[in-house]
């Protein structure tokens, strides 16, 4: 339902959107059923001059109606909830619990009001001489599976890439890992999703998903970007 509002740029974006569609359908059915019956009852039993007075529902009739109108929907909702729970947990486990074989690692450090990205550089090893560290810009290659290590220096932040459907809070003192796999090239927004003080609104970062050639070109001349030993 939300792909009409925002791109799907990562491998699991379609999974999350499918789950959202499932929830839209299930809750939509129940919502319109309940509101429909509600407004119908209002119209049908409105007090009309000279109309029928209210009818007393005695305990027996209430028990019958209760079974029909409350118990059955109660069980149906339970079934829908089980379906929703299974959907939610499978999507959650694929994204947050599992860690597939990743090609590269990126170290993301959040601080009061900037993002620092440490790329492995040409040799593919983290914490080596040729690491490329860039501020508020992240360069990755489309199709590669990346593992990110998320840290925060001072307060809580949250690394959020809406087009990837990726969001993970960064907590000072903790290293939180996750993964993503970009599927389309382009320039995308990175937002901070946890209030982190005055600059929370002005710490955007840009994410460059490049074709293999463009990525190699970027790797070749890192001088253009801030490259210093971490």
């Amino acid at each position, binding site marked *: 339902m*939300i792909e009409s*509002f*925002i791109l799907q740029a990562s491998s699991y974006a379609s999974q*999350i959107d499918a*789950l*959202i569609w499932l*929830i839209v359908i299930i*809750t*939509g059915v*129940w*919502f319109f059923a*309940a*509101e429909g019956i*509600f*407004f119908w*009852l209002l119209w049908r*039993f409105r007090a009309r001059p000279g109309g029928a*007075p*209210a*009818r*007393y*529902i005695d305990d027996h009739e209430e028990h019958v*109606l*209760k079974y029909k109108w*409350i118990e059955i929907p*109660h069980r149906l*909702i339970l079934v829908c*909830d089980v379906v929703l*729970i299974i*959907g*939610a947990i*499978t*999507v*959650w*486990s694929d994204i*947050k*619990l599992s860690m597939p074989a990743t090609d590269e690692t990126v170290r993301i450090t959040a601080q009061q009001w900037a993002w620092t990205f440490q790329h492995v550089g040409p040799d593919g090893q983290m914490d080596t001489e040729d690491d490329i560290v860039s501020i508020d810009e992240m360069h990755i290659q489309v199709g590669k599976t990346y593992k990110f290590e998320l840290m925060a220096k*001072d*307060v*809580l932040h949250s690394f*959020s890439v*809406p087009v990837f*459907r*990726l*969001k993970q809070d960064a*907590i000072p*003192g*903790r290293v939180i890992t996750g993964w993503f796999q970009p599927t389309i090239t382009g*320039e995308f*927004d990175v*937002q*901070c*999703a*946890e*209030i982190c*003080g*005055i600059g*929370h*609104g*002005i710490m955007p970062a840009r994410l460059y998903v490049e074709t293999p050639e463009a990525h190699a070109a970027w790797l070749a001349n890192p001088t253009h970007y801030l490259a210093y030993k971490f």
Partner: protein
Amino acid sequence: MAQSHAHDDHAHGDHHEEGWFLKYFWSTDHKMIAKQYLLTGMALGVIGAYFAYVFRMQLAFPNKPVPGYGLVTGSDYNALVTNHGAIMIFWVAMPVLIAAFGNFLIPLMVGCDDMVFPRLNRLSYQIFLISAIVLVSSFFVEGGAFGGAWTAYPPLSAKAEYNLTPLGPTLWLAAVALEFVAFLLGGINFVTTAMNSRAPGMRALDLPMAVWMIVIASILFMCSVGPLIAGAVMLMFDQTIGTGFFDPDRGGDPVLWQHLFWFFGHPEVYVVLLPPLGFVAEIITTFSRKRLFAYKTVLYTTIGTGILSFFVWAHHQFIAGVDPRMSNVFSVTTVLISIPIAELCFVYIATLYAGSISFRVPMLWALAFIAEFLVGGVTGIFLGASGADIYFHDTYFVVAHFHYTFFPIAIIGTFAGVTYWYPKMFGRHMDETLGKIHFWVTIAGFNGIFIPLFILGAAGDHRRIFDYSNFPELASPELQAMRVFATVSLLVMLAVQPLFAWNFFRNMWKGKVAEANPWNANTLEWQCPSPPPHGNFNPMPEVYRGPYEYSQPGRADDFWPQNSPT
């Protein structure tokens, strides 16, 4: 036996004529304390609405001076958003819904003369008033008010060098702690009065649903606020003395505060939800002349919801660094809690079946509560399902969801309660047509604000960002048009509120004099004069039946007061 409001003559016991101060500010009468809470809550509601006006104008017309405030900087925006949330929940919803209506209704509906501990009742209001003053004062201290969200997550809320407001957070925390003390004292009064002081012959199942709901809400509050009071002490020490409870570098853990806060946070939203559900139950039964459908089901699902509300808190923290395996556990309990609430809504809708529904102003508000709350409940499933919450967490989708639950609770529920019990509280009627105009414009404005916010949230708008022009994807003209539409809807809604204020205050003296039972209702508060004298009933009522015996076959009139022997 209409009594003019100004002079309280009553036959119950000798009562010297109190001075002006004693009567209005130092009173121990539960009805006067109820009005004090109501007016204080409404005053702070105006402040909260003003904050909403200012930051919504900033969102719609970024970086332009807002008329009535001036230029909104980043820190101003955070302070306004933080305190809008805190004020609306702690200083508007709770005082008005639990304290004002609890104080006014419980003794009357239970059929006794006052709260069990009148002086403790007065003390709880005074502590609440001090907490409100401390909170408002936090705006005028050096460095400005606290801007770290109403959830006050450390380390941002713990260290001044991070939040750059040295005094604000401590004052804010002191105000919240005082407000908790006030509601602990108040809660004890409500629960003890409702449990012990029932009128003779009134069994537990004869209690009106409003009393049950306020009592269960108070119990939920008292059983859940404890850890947060401990957390507030620890956070206060972190802020002032420099201990390291939540400082990761010194052995502390910021996630501990999140758990302490949300262990209280989720039961808290049910604490504010239950009283309006009680008012809606009273109103829809009275105006559809129908017995409440399945009283026991309503009671047991409410208790079930209350218990289950202690098992769901970490759905606020799915992606906040808690262990992902725990998130699955909390996702299961969160989705399951939708069952009792859905059942409650179905039972209320079923009450309308075979009724004779008259659309007076209180009934309009009560029906609007059900219709709007269904939207809030349904959109909660998106956030309870952990998989979908990855995307929706901390976006405007969440903001729209909890406004579709909080707005019906705090605003629609309050207007329903005020318009329904106004004749009893002030002895006069409010104007019907003004009430209807106010109703329709408010409901239209409310939906106009928050439906666009659902779409903005789905498009990726994140919370508490004061200027979206820094984010190219979000600075698109269509999204900005939606923000402007939401702000304009807010202006329309705010524009009609003075109409309610005029209707509310003017009719206290000029309104048509109200008789004791204007709506022909059954519960005990309608069986004593309006406004009830000191000591409420003369003689004390005996109860013979349940509160909802409307349209009994074979009776002349279609209502049967609880205390009438025949």
